[in-house]
């Protein structure tokens, strides 16, 4: 028997893709190599009763069309809105807190700089207007400038949106897109802590310091789907990303999607340039008209399909995809919430430790020369403050991203791996937080450290990059995942890609799964 479509992997994009295909009346099978639906996005138990999302920071920016079409609220999806959204820890104790209400943030900034406070709301509004443009881009396939003319039509609509910004904002958008976040922030603000915190957010998904061109775009990228001025915290789902997976699982099953775990795919079988079936690790085979893979372009095409059917230039391009996660994830199970000195409210959103732009740049300098940062940039969350389902009563889970960690052997004289290195970095991270929250070390009940190498081996994320491809200017839009192949198709007929490595990327959005399913459905219909 032959499925209409088989989806490889069961992360959020793959599940959205599967549910959308089934919603289109197709017979769909999802194959997950691991023991649980969700893959790298499945919740894990750090200790009994303590749930963490292993690699994802939050539920990203869920495309409203996905929420609506899949009726995720019917399957248990509940969105939370932690406030404050961001707390930037000051060296002298206390923190600069950012709130959902921009006026409240302005007041907080005014304590540090009246000039910056005066500029905050205009900056936040302008960034939001720019993020809205990116949101528009994220919701549709990336037009290919050298592709067929009909693909350029969306450009016109987008052009109108950009023009609607008015001359001043429009030219500012063109200036900001390739700008280093360093320059953008230096142009606007004077307070080192404010600039440092936003600078730290601008290098998420990049193996670069804030002085690198393209980091302003990354800052905007992470703002898509957030309320005005809510830098650093996006969609938060009850139950974490694991909670999102449960809702997607429910929506997929309700549409008749068949899901199988412990089903590792060994090979995509190709006949006359067309993907026809899959061979699984247990030796069995399963046939389909279309195969949609969320495993990353290089893994799918080079490891599973094999380069035989591919043009050498395309193979070369696959090998050039830069995946450089560059951070370590530290999970902590806590007997009590950390109490930050000088901070009245619990830090419900994102906590950033990056007192200045130079601090962030120096942290990157270490990694660029092959060492983990001596003083890492820390981005932490205590999701159990807003979501009591994640830890036993009164207890908490905390996840800390420590930047930077070298990834790429080509980029450094020394590799970076092994338990010792990870523990040393985690010790440094905990010590840095303990300077501001002295009760933290004594509250730790359990700890788990993931280095890029661990994310690669355990979750199949090349280079430890949860985005499956650095969010660099040359790896976005029609250049993602491979230049000219941004429409979810591949040179092998019947084989499609979705997932974070494809447009729009940069977070969990569901958009990639939805758009890829659209491409598959269109082609299946073309075949009758």
């Amino acid at each position: 028997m032959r499925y209409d479509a088989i989806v490889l992997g069961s992360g959020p994009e793959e599940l959205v893709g599967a549910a959308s295909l089934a919603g289109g009346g197709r017979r769909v099978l999802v194959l997950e190599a691991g023991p649980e639906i969700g893959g790298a996005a499945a919740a894990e138990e750090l200790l009994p009763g303590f749930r963490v999302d292993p690699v994802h920071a939050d539920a990203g920016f869920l495309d409203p069309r996905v929420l609506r079409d899949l009726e995720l609220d019917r399957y248990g999806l509940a969105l939370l809105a932690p406030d404050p959204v961001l707390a930037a820890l000051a060296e002298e104790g206390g923190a600069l807190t950012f709130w959902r209400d921009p006026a409240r943030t302005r007041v907080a900034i005014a304590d540090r700089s009246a000039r910056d406070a005066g500029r905050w709301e205009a900056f936040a509004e302008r960034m939001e207007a720019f993020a809205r443009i990116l949101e528009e881009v994220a919701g549709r396939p990336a037009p290919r400038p050298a592709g067929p003319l009909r693909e350029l039509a969306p450009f016109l609509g987008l052009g109108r949106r950009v023009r609607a910004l008015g001359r001043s904002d429009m030219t500012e958008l063109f200036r900001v897109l390739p700008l280093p976040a360093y320059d953008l922030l230096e142009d606007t603000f004077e307070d080192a802590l404010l600039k440092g915190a936003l600078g730290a957010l601008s290098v998420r998904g990049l193996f670069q310091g804030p002085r690198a061109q393209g980091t302003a775009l990354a800052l905007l990228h992470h703002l898509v789907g957030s309320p005005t001025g809510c830098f650093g915290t996006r969609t938060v789902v009850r139950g974490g990303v694991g909670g999102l997976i449960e809702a997607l699982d429910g929506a997929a099953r309700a549409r008749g999607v068949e899901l199988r775990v412990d089903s590792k795919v060994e090979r995509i079988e190709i006949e006359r340039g067309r993907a026809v079936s899959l061979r699984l690790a247990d030796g069995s085979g399963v046939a389909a008209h279309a195969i949609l893979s969320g495993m990353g372009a290089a893994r799918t095409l080079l490891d599973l399909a094999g380069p035989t059917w591919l043009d050498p230039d395309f193979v070369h391009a696959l090998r050039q995809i830069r995946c450089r996660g560059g951070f370590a994830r530290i999970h902590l199970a806590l007997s009590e919430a950390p109490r930050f000195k000088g901070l009245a409210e619990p830090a419900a959103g994102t906590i950033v430790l990056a007192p200045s732009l130079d601090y962030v740049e120096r942290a990157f300098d270490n990694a660029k020369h092959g060492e983990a940062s001596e003083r890492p940039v820390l981005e932490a969350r205590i999701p159990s403050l807003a979501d009591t389902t994640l830890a036993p009563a009164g207890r908490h889970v905390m996840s800390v991203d420590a930047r930077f960690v070298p990834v790429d052997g080509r980029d450094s004289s020394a590799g970076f791996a092994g338990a010792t290195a990870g523990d040393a970095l985690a010790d440094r991270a905990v010590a840095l937080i303990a300077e501001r929250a002295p009760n933290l070390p004594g509250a730790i009940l359990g700890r788990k450290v993931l280095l890029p190498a661990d994310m690669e081996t355990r979750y199949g994320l090349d280079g430890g990059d949860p985005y499956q491809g650095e969010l660099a200017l040359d790896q976005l839009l029609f250049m993602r995942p491979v230049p000219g192949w941004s429409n979810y198709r591949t040179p092998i007929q019947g084989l499609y890609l979705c997932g974070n490595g494809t447009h729009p990327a940069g977070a969990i959005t569901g958009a990639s799964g939805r758009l890829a399913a659209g491409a598959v459905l269109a082609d299946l219909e073309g075949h009758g």
Partner: protein
Amino acid sequence: MQIARVWDAIVIGGGHNGLVCAAYLARAGRKVLVLERRPILGGAAVTEEIFPGFKFSVFSYVVSLLRPEIIRDLDLPGHGLHIVPLESTFNPLPDGDYLATWADSEETRRELYRHSPRDADAMQEFGRLMQRMAMAVKPLLATEPPDPASLHPRELLAMGRIGKHFRDLGERDLHALVKLMTMSSADYLREWFESEALVAAKSASGIIGTFLGPRSPGTAYVLLHHYMGEIDGVFRAWGFARGGTGAVSESIASAARGFGAEIRTDAAVASVIVKGGRAAGVALESGEELRARTVISGLDPRRTFLELVEPADLPSDLVAAVERFRFRGSSGKVNLALSELPDFSALPGAGPHLKGAIAIAPSVDYLERAYDDAKYGDFSRRPFMDIVIPSMIDPTMAPPGKHVMSIFVQYAPYARTGGWDDRSREAFGDAVVDTLAEYAPNIRSAILHRQVITPADIEAVTGLSEGNIFQGELALSQLFFLRPAPQWADHRTPVGGYYQCGSGTHPGGGIMGASGHLAAKAILADGGR
């Protein structure tokens, strides 16, 4: 106060772009006057006898980007321009080896093969691609950037033409171009080559004049910018003007004079006279006033908009854009008078490698560390250097048997913590000589005289703000329709009759002359009287 006769056009600044602009205007029959503050012409393209008998291309030291149509239109060879190609590159390495390229492509291939057979093969295709990319970008160098915010049919048409131009490149080349416009030179080159020495040597052209490291996105474009040069139709040919870089300026000046332009040195302009929103002439620092219907500034955007005219006369968003235009000079220069040639341990003797470009850029890491020093406010302790020995090509540059050495050095940040003074200048010079001595130990004893130039000196002598050799960084946010400011990238200004022609305008950077040429075209198109 005397009122002088009325000129059609006055060009402020006798740099190469100002001279090119003047020459084209004069050729079109306009009565043109060029005013240069210094006693010599050329701006940053000058030859000066700094020490008796030793002549130096004090600042800019190689020629490549000068537009061939300018050379043709102005008959520069007829005015004494003679460019001798630099035929080799030589990069000594810390392990005692070296990486070289030679005029003979087979010899270069053998040399690359020694480092990596794969790279030797890849180099052929890489060269062809870069040539195609340079060809793809070149038409833009000779085009006024359209204003994307305008709905004027002319601008929309121009945008459409550019869109079509890029579509016509075909998918493959278009994607390669996008990569070059956005990537770091190190990442881009690593897609092609495996030899660290080769990647480092090539990525160094991506950092020249920038405040970026080879791993910073944006440097691949600067790499391409440096590939756009050609000499007599030969791509990627770098040359040395006989008589030094000043000879380039002199030949353009001679051509301009031949068309009837008048050129005055020691004539510093204090301000542009604006009457009723229109340029009416210039006031010199001496108090003299000169009338003209058209005034063209060859100075950088900061001086053009914030110093020569009253910023109050300009739209506030233009002033804001110019105020945040980034200069951040990052390079210095060390000029040495030598009693003998340097003797490189990696390739001893006075071989042909001393006739070409010599670079100290042994690894990407080395260049990044040099950048790290500058990021936090100091000059590189072990800097990147691009060296030529002009006396090897043109013996008139130094007394018989002696030599001059020109060392372009990066990074030397303009905004050095603690500023620049005699002590820090000499410490910077020492760092350069000490580093060079690691590769050519005889250099110390061979030095007869030493001139050290910091970005602060470049600013003080040539007037280039913050000592930026490109009149503003060649960053994506400062190119094309954003250079120097949105809406004013077409060499015009909000002040009627006031134009800009320096390399702070499109297409910018290097001894190219394209900015001066485009400005002249804009003036003539406007009527220019």
